[in-house]
């Protein structure tokens, strides 16, 4: 059975390593914070100017001066720190953030990502996404494998305006975990109950399937 958004977030959370600073994008990536494995300590950076982002505040405790990059009211953890936007992107551009998780509309087999603009539709802007993808050494894209019409979002070449080129190395979708290297998608894991054939059918880009494709283990 294909994963839902929480399942994708849960699988991505397994990639976290102790001591990492992590930037989570809006949407599915935000959910990753709910599934941090036991014994792993990570700290969340939000590009509007906080390191040590905590959970949402209890009702009545909201502070208009304390939000995340999604403009949601948040709290700060013990040891948190606030800073300005230039310092925030110094952290990002300077590769001090160990993992960036963000959503995408399209990813191509050479690691290009498109997630900010659909021609003909209202353009909202790239926010910090272009800085994040151009800078991060370690990017995981969280996305649905296909759009609502069933058309693959894992492509040979992106059709939408790019956010960054050759930067994505790992994709976690509702169907699979894939690595990008050598201009190909490499299938690493299947979602529980999803077949290799389903994944291959849903992938427009070149996909390499090893002899044995294990099923994800979300029970860890």
């Amino acid at each position, binding site marked *: 059975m294909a994963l839902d958004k929480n399942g994708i977030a849960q699988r991505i959370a397994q990639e976290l390593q102790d001591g990492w600073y992590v930037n989570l994008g809006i949407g599915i990536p935000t959910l990753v914070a709910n599934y941090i494995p036991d014994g792993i300590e990570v700290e969340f950076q939000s590009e509007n100017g906080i390191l040590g982002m905590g959970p949402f505040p209890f*009702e009545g405790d909201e*502070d208009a001066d304390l939000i995340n990059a999604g403009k949601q009211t948040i709290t700060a953890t013990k040891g948190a720190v606030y800073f300005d*936007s230039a310092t925030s*992107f110094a952290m990002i*551009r300077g590769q001090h953030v160990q993992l960036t998780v963000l959503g995408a509309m399209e990813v191509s087999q050479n690691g290009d990502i498109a997630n900010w603009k659909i021609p003909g539709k209202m353009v909202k802007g790239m926010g910090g996404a272009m800085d994040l993808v151009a800078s991060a050494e370690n990017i995981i894209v969280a996305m649905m494998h296909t759009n609502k019409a069933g058309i693959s979002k894992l492509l040979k070449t992106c059709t939408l305006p790019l956010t960054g080129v050759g930067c994505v190395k790992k994709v976690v979708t509702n169907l699979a975990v894939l690595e990008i290297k050598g201009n190909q998608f490499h299938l690493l894991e299947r979602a529980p109950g999803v077949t290799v054939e389903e994944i291959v059918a849903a992938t427009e880009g070149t996909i390499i399937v090893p002899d044995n494709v294990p099923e994800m283990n979300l029970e860890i």
Partner: protein
Amino acid sequence: MNKVVANPEEALKGVESNMTLMLGGFGLCGIPENSITQLVKLGVTGLTCISNNAGVDDFGLGLLLQGKQIKKMISSYVGENDEFERQMLSGELDVELIPQGSLAERCRAGGAGIPAFYTPAGYGTEVAEGKEVREFNGKPHILEKALHADFAIVKAWKGDTEGNLIFKATARNFNPMMAMAGKITVAEVEELVPAGALDPNEIHTPGIFVQRIFKGLKFEKRIEQRTVRQK
């Protein structure tokens, strides 16, 4: 070196139509509310506004959009409001989108006398069109230029009579860099204290960057996305 002015009227004296303004804030967080109200009153038009976002329909920069006072927005993320979308699609409003980190760094560069710098952000995208590309350490970068403004308008938590500023939590965001990049920088603060009342170790924006400071009459501090958990 007293920078105190009595009110927004005095603080924004000299703002004229067709000027370039920087306005601090991220979403509705840390925006100079009192100054925006005064810009509406002034009725200046043809403004180029450099601000990370463009407010919502009835708050923040949305108020200037309603009055069609803005000719051009330079931002990283916009369109949280219908009037913005209408004006942009109809061609009344010109919009230049800049990656958020490049926007922050370009403001800082403007204030710091750095005319241009290289960044990897936007390489290979439409943001890079017409910009020089150069490789450093095997990685392509694009050349980005400094931004400047006739007026930079920022909002701080505390300020002293010398223009020294302290921001609160994530309301800091773009305010410190924009404060550096204005020919005239106006700061509105929640609390205005005498020189010497702030610890010189704790000041975020040194007063040298600020020409005028005033205590805002009222701060609504509207929350854009109220998210809570249950007790």
